[in-house]
């Protein structure tokens, strides 16, 4: 049994995810599309909070919403003139895309539902505590079991590569 508040919160978040996703891919103004993406990302962050992963939610907001979307906005401003509408989609293409997406949805949803064993209720945390910041930090830097030092370092290299790559690619010749 859940509290009414949490039910309401869930409904709101779920609806927000779906609505903003749809809007993000259907709106013709690209800047709006980015905005709707931002909202969808916020909603996702809310899910993380709801499930108890506060740190992750924070990262989601900071990196995704704060970082990536800003990048999007910049690039949109760089590559399009204000007030531009993207050309209207051909209805045929739209239909076909829709069919594809719906088929995908159908197959995945069917497979999810038909495999009932994975559908679990939210487990009671009881004694187990959700991860604390301290624990996350320790795991990130640990090289033992459940330690993520190697991917951490790999990511750092990757990021470096991306920085250099981004500069090289975007640099004026």
């Amino acid at each position: 049994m859940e509290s009414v508040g949490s039910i309401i919160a869930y409904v709101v978040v779920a609806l927000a995810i779906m609505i903003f996703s749809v809007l993000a891919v259907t709106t013709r103004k690209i800047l709006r599309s980015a905005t709707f993406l931002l909202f969808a990302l916020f909603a996702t962050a809310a899910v993380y909070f709801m499930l108890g992963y506060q740190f992750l939610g924070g990262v989601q907001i900071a990196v995704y919403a704060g970082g990536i979307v800003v990048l999007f906005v910049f690039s949109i401003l760089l590559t399009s003139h204000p007030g531009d509408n993207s050309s209207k989609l051909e209805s045929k293409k739209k239909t076909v895309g829709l069919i594809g997406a719906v088929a995908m949805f159908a197959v995945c949803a069917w497979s999810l539902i038909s495999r009932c064993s994975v559908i679990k209720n939210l487990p009671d945390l009881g004694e187990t505590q959700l991860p604390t910041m301290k624990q996350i930090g320790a795991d990130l830097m640990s090289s033992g079991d459940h330690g993520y030092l190697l991917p951490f370092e790999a990511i750092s290299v990757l990021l470096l590569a991306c920085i250099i790559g981004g500069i090289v690619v975007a640099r004026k010749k």
Partner: protein
Amino acid sequence: MDFLNNFQLNSLMFLIPSLFMFCCGVYGFLTRRNMIAMLISLELMLNAVDMNFVVFNRFLCPAQMDGMFFTLFAIAIAAAETAVAIAIIINAYRIAKDIDVKDLTKMKF
């Protein structure tokens, strides 16, 4: 209010919205021609996947944090990827003065 009393959050309730988000991403990726819009769709899909990681982690083995860490790294990689992708898009725009994918087919064959 039986319904409300018996209401339990289960994994499906998070997986279905995430799947919906993913399919929206697919739709957008298939139909939009603006490369930035496609990238946005891509972000949606990626986000949906991240969400799945977290959901499975939370519902199946809450004692561990592997799913969460995956998401964490995925976000980092997504950021990197977006940065590079946008760099490429800007570069393509410089060359083609356009970011419509239909016009960027020089790399075929």
